[in-house]
């Protein structure tokens, strides 16, 4: 069984991400299995919205918080549009598929600094897992 929980008073982004995760793990057995095996934490900062959330994974459960997670395995910093693009971009092995225009557009934002990902390369497996869990493409 997989559980998506919200900790504390959620901000709008925390509610959105929790809803997205809940729908995805409920409707997709592969994503539910992925969550069953995941342990670690991810922090997501949406600069232009001034909103931060944390995702804390223990096997079978993800807790979404409206706060930073010190020591997160992966820290994703982006604007709101890029965060939405990360959820809709076609993936290949859990990362944006550079063989598609949308995938190249997202990867290109790494070069311009519009998308920053901290914690790599050690956090690569967690990054691939969380992008897969949040993806709706």
């Amino acid at each position, binding site marked *: 069984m997989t559980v998506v929980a919200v900790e504390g008073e959620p901000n709008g*982004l925390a509610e*959105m991400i929790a809803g997205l995760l809940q729908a995805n793990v409920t409707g997709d057995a592969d994503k539910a299995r992925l969550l069953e095996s995941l342990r670690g934490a991810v922090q997501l900062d949406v600069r232009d919205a001034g909103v931060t959330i944390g995702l804390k994974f223990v096997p079978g459960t993800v807790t979404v918080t409206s706060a930073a997670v010190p020591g997160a395995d992966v820290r994703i910093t982006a604007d*709101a549009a890029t965060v939405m693009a990360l959820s809709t971009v076609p993936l290949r092995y859990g990362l944006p598929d550079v063989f598609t225009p949308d995938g190249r557009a997202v990867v290109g934002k790494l070069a311009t600094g519009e998308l920053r990902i901290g914690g790599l390369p050690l956090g690569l497996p967690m990054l691939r897992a969380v992008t897969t869990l949040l993806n709706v493409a």
Partner: protein
Amino acid sequence: MVAYGTQEWLDTYRERINASASYRAAAATWEGALAYVFEAEPDKRWPETTHAVMDLWHGQCRDARLTSAAEAEQAPFVIRAPYSRWKQVIRGELDPIKAMMQGKLRLRGDLPTVVRHVAAAKVLVAIAGEIATEFPDEQTTA
């Protein structure tokens, strides 16, 4: 000028949506009613919470009308905010996606569907912004 939040405004909105090639393309796979809840702000001359429901289907708006709270809550997608937030969104002063992330617009509905149709949502907002709208807190008293 069309008074905001009236049936006349919704009729104009529906006509503009149905004339929009951008919306037709962005919402080609959208199915389902979307309810707007304009929450009361008496100090802004918006004394009562008002509900509207848009019957959106594959890039077309089949109906747009003021409705009851009960019917609005039955819609598969509901967006609610105080009157003045809606005004900011319609005027392009507040990005709807950022507003949702900040909790300034509150959304209820299937999130994956909404995320897949962010472009359609932005077009809906842009169309609303093109309507010459008279907001009640800007009306001059006779």
